[in-house]
């Protein structure tokens, strides 16, 4: 309880001049460590399956035949295919785009906005004269599944340059702000109530929320990105879901992924 109060104090400081992402992250990690003393931080990358043994076992059985495998294979083919001008995605990214997801999203100082991996892929296409892909579509899901797969085992290393602080702050505010008819913040469920049961659903910790995207969700019957989940979590409290890759969601992803710094990437994943 004391830690929750301390967190609320830390996070209620809204003066941008005082923003200190690293202090925020340490408080965030400390909160989950004291909420779940017997669960190591890294384990939260499996979300709710880190918190319930029976659900975990069912899930591990499902993982014997990973439902995202096809997406990874298709994504690899897509990724290698040349654009009409002869170039390919590899030319747009460090290390040819392999094993780099731990650096996304980042704050682009020139464009003065947060760039997610999905957006970087579309910027690459645009640069080479190709039409952008639908953010909610299968092709984007497959491409990012492949890129996530090549980044497995790496650890998030998001940076916030001084120019990026206000984007970070906006994302943080979104996370702690109550919204919708039911009046919930992201933090109401995934921080304040993490580990509790909402009906039959166990509420996962936000410290593992960025590690495993895109995710094949049985409910969706397809692979989808983090922003698709944001939309669902917004709508279930009667708030408006925003467009995938809208500035507000990119800022939220920036904050959330910074909070996941040091966590091991394990995407793509499967969820119920």
């Amino acid at each position, binding site marked *: 309880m004391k830690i929750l109060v301390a967190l609320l104090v830390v996070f209620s400081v809204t003066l941008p001049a005082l923003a200190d992402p690293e202090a925020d992250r340490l408080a965030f990690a400390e909160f989950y460590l004291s909420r779940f003393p017997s669960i190591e931080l890294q384990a939260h990358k499996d979300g709710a399956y880190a918190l319930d043994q029976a659900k975990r076992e069912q899930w591990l059985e499902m993982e014997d035949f990973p439902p995202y495998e096809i997406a990874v294979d298709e994504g690899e083919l897509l990724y290698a295919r040349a654009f009409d001008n002869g170039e390919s995605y590899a030319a747009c990214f460090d290390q040819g785009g392999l094993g780099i997801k731990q650096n996304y999203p980042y704050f682009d100082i020139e464009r003065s906005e947060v760039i997610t991996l999905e957006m970087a892929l579309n910027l690459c296409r645009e640069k080479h004269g190709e039409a952008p892909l639908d953010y909610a579509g299968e092709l984007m899901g497959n491409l990012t599944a492949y890129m996530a797969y090549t980044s497995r085992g790496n650890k998030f290393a998001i940076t916030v340059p001084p120019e990026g602080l206000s984007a970070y702050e906006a994302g943080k505010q979104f996370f702690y702000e109550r919204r919708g*008819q039911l*009046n919930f913040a992201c933090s109401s*469920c995934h921080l304040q*109530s993490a580990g509790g*049961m*909402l*009906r*039959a*659903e166990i509420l996962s910790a936000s410290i593992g929320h960025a590690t495993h995207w895109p995710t094949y969700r049985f409910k969706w019957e397809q692979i989808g990105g983090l922003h698709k989940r944001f939309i669902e979590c917004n709508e279930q409290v009667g708030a408006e879901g925003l467009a995938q890759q809208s500035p507000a969601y990119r800022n939220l992803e920036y904050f959330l992924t910074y909070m996941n710094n040091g966590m091991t990437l394990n995407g793509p994943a499967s969820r119920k």
Partner: protein
Amino acid sequence: MNRNLSMILRLTALVASILFPVSLALAEELPEVIPTSIDKGRSIAFNRNAGNCLSCHFVVDAELPGNLGPPLIQMQARFPDRAVLRAQIWNAASQNPDTIMPPYGKHNILTESEVDLVVDYIYSL
């Protein structure tokens, strides 16, 4: 309705009336049941698109209740003043500003009279 299906249903009804004549006869003689305010409140509290209280609270005969809030039991003992109970449901933040319980009245999730019915029901627990 599909002809075969309606035939099957009618046959089932017929067989049932032969097998259980007494219970059917009883059912026919029962006066129409008028739901009490407690019944109405219960169904509002249970409905996922209305109170959905069970997503966070245990109450008797709840299936798969959540546990984010305390079990709703012995409410008269815990809320000797009914108005305090109503205020908790109307706007839980008035008692605890950091609450995660939705403000049912304040945010028009339920109407005034629905809140009253839910209070009737909860107070009976």
